[in-house]
């Protein structure tokens, strides 16, 4: 059962989950992720020129796991695009008459009054909603009340400035006059607008990096003005599981082989830890077995001494995901330590049994010592798991606790059963290999 549960183990790739969750920086980090759907841990790639940056940016934009890109390509449009825009700007600049004066009719004045009424209703309703949400003396309703008469639901109170109603009454009092005045206002507005458009259409050359403010170029452009940096921010769920992180890296690697950044470093670390860990574990285990063989000069007793550790490790790795824990960069490094510490129980018991040849005596004396020493070690590591505010440190305590506990259990449960195999039917006390 535990062996099949081993494959349920998951690796925590989100470093932030290993930090104390109440820390203000972590709370803010989570808020940013939640609000902007973005992870602040970016990747980056160097583009040799702006065209290369544009190609990379276009490809990266198609990648669904990319939340945002910061690239100089966004500020310098492509050659063709610039040409097309300049042509359009020139067309607007050279228009003989961009705007014509509009003559308001009496019907237009009525429509205008209707729009002013709608505006007043909208402002009244905004005020009502603000009272429902913020109370009676909020700034929105105060501002509203300065423009309208007193309003209490369906009832009205004292008259106020009533800017909207006054304007409506005014334009409706003499629609023809106000049609002319609106036409004049429009003519002034058109002239002012035309001056602004004219100023904006004076552009007659392409935008270059030199036109960009330093605040943009400083972080993205190299000093020679050609090489530039493209920054890529992943979607917020990228660190949820190892598969997503790996998939994100592979997708980016395909687009830009020289890419580096937080996720790339994370995966490299993981690969390094994975290789080193198993190498270290195998080396430690091999060395321990060799020493046991030299010491016991018996394959059988070497097996006896090492079985509790082997089975204990399987139990530990099986229980760990079942109780909802995840492996991480810190607690996996404890596995070689568990091998080194956990083998002791089997060695002590196997040695004593070889001398005594009696399971009961072995466990009465050495078993008790092993039990007590394991218990004190478990209390030590368990306390670390319970009181450490850093989840990373606590996880080290937890895995050590589980490792020692499962090795102790297998020493107490499996090992006597193995010793029992040496007993012949009818034997009261097996002498085992006692010489």
């Amino acid at each position, binding site marked *: 059962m535990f062996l099949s549960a081993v494959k349920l183990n998951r690796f925590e790739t989100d470093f932030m989950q290993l930090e104390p*969750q109440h820390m203000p920086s972590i709370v803010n980090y989570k808020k940013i992720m939640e609000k902007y759907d973005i992870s602040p841990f970016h990747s980056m790639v160097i583009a040799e020129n702006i065209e290369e940056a544009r190609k990379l940016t276009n490809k990266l934009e198609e990648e669904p796991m990319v939340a945002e890109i910061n690239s100089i390509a966004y500020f310098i449009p492509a050659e063709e695009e610039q040409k097309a825009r300049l042509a359009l700007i020139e067309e607007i600049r050279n228009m003989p008459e961009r705007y014509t004066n509009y003559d308001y009719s009496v019907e237009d004045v009525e429509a205008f009054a209707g729009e002013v009424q709608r505006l007043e209703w909208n402002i009244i*309703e905004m005020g009502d909603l603000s009272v429902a949400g913020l109370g009676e003396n909020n700034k929105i309703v105060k501002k509203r009340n300065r423009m309208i008469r007193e309003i209490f639901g*369906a009832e009205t109170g004292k008259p106020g400035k009533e800017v909207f109603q006054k304007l409506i009454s005014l334009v409706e009092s003499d629609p023809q006059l106000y049609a002319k005045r609106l036409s004049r206002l429009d003519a002034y507005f058109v002239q002012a607008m035309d001056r602004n458009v004219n100023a904006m259409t004076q552009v007659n050359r392409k935008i270059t990096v030199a036109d960009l403010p330093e605040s943009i170029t400083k972080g993205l452009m190299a000093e020679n003005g050609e090489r530039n940096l493209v920054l890529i921010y992943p979607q917020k769920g990228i660190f949820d599981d190892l598969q997503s992180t790996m998939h994100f890296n592979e997708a980016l690697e395909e687009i830009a082989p020289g890419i580096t950044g937080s996720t790339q470093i994370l995966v490299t670390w993981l690969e390094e830890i994975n290789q080193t860990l198993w190498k270290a574990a195998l080396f430690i285990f091999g060395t321990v077995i060799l020493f046991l063989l030299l010491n016991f000069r018996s394959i059988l007793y070497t097996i006896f001494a090492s079985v509790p550790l082997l089975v204990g490790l399987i139990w530990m790795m099986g229980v760990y995901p079942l109780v909802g824990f995840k492996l991480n960069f810190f607690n996996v490094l404890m596995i070689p330590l568990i091998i080194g510490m956990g083998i002791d129980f089997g060695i002590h018991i196997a040695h004593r049994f070889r001398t005594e040849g009696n399971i009961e005596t072995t466990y009465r004396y050495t078993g008790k010592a092993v039990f007590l020493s394991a218990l004190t070690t478990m209390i030590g590591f368990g306390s670390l798991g319970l009181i450490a505010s850093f989840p990373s440190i606590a996880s080290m305590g937890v895995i050590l606790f589980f490792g020692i506990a499962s090795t102790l259990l297998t020493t107490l449960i499996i090992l006597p059963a193995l010793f029992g195999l040496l007993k012949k039917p009818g034997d009261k006390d097996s002498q085992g290999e006692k010489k």
Partner: protein
Amino acid sequence: MKNRLQFISLMLFIFAAAQLFAQDAEAIMRKAEEKYAFNTSKAEISMLVYPQADNERNFREYSILSYGRGEEETYLEFLSPRSIKGLRILSKGGDQWVYFSSTGRVRKIAGKAKKESVRGVGGDFSYEDLGGEDMRKKYDFRVLQDRSDKWVLEGNPKTEDATYSRLVVTVDKSSYLIEKIEYYTEEEGHYKDMYMGEVKILGGREMPSQVVMINREKNSKTVIITHSALYDISVDEKYFNPNRFYK
């Protein structure tokens, strides 16, 4: 052989006991929620919103007449403050309509997020907190503590649309009334606490007449006091009809 039988019996006992506890929690919640279950309701309530939970002097008060039908239909009519008297809000499923008595217009408001405050007027209560939907539909419950007079139950989400990552519900053993709910979210941790007290006979039922919600993140507090309530009565269809609720 005897040892093996003992071991199997022990395992079976542990398994059965675990099942029994799980069933208990569900049964407790079912009974507790039955206390608040109704098809229709009419209530006159006061809502007191305290922007700072520890400042009892600074609060705003609203008097509201409410009608409810099923789990997803609610009609609210503001009786005070005077400035918004007659403002009516109809919530049906994910949609909301607001009638402004000041302009005589009805506006449909965009869909709601279950965790959000009820269009700003719910204070610290969200749609899910106020909605009549059973918690058991979205959360799996287990007994956390079995005290002499109370049960403390823990609810964990079983559906993806559950707003909270964890609920801790305290239920009174003698009355099966919920006394407190602690709300936890992934982002905020221990997010809100709801206290239900001042038990009275309302509409022929023993019900808490005062519900206090404390938002631990914003340090704000909202109190809902039920002055009168009627349950499972005949309610005019118009209150839940978007074309007629304001007439």
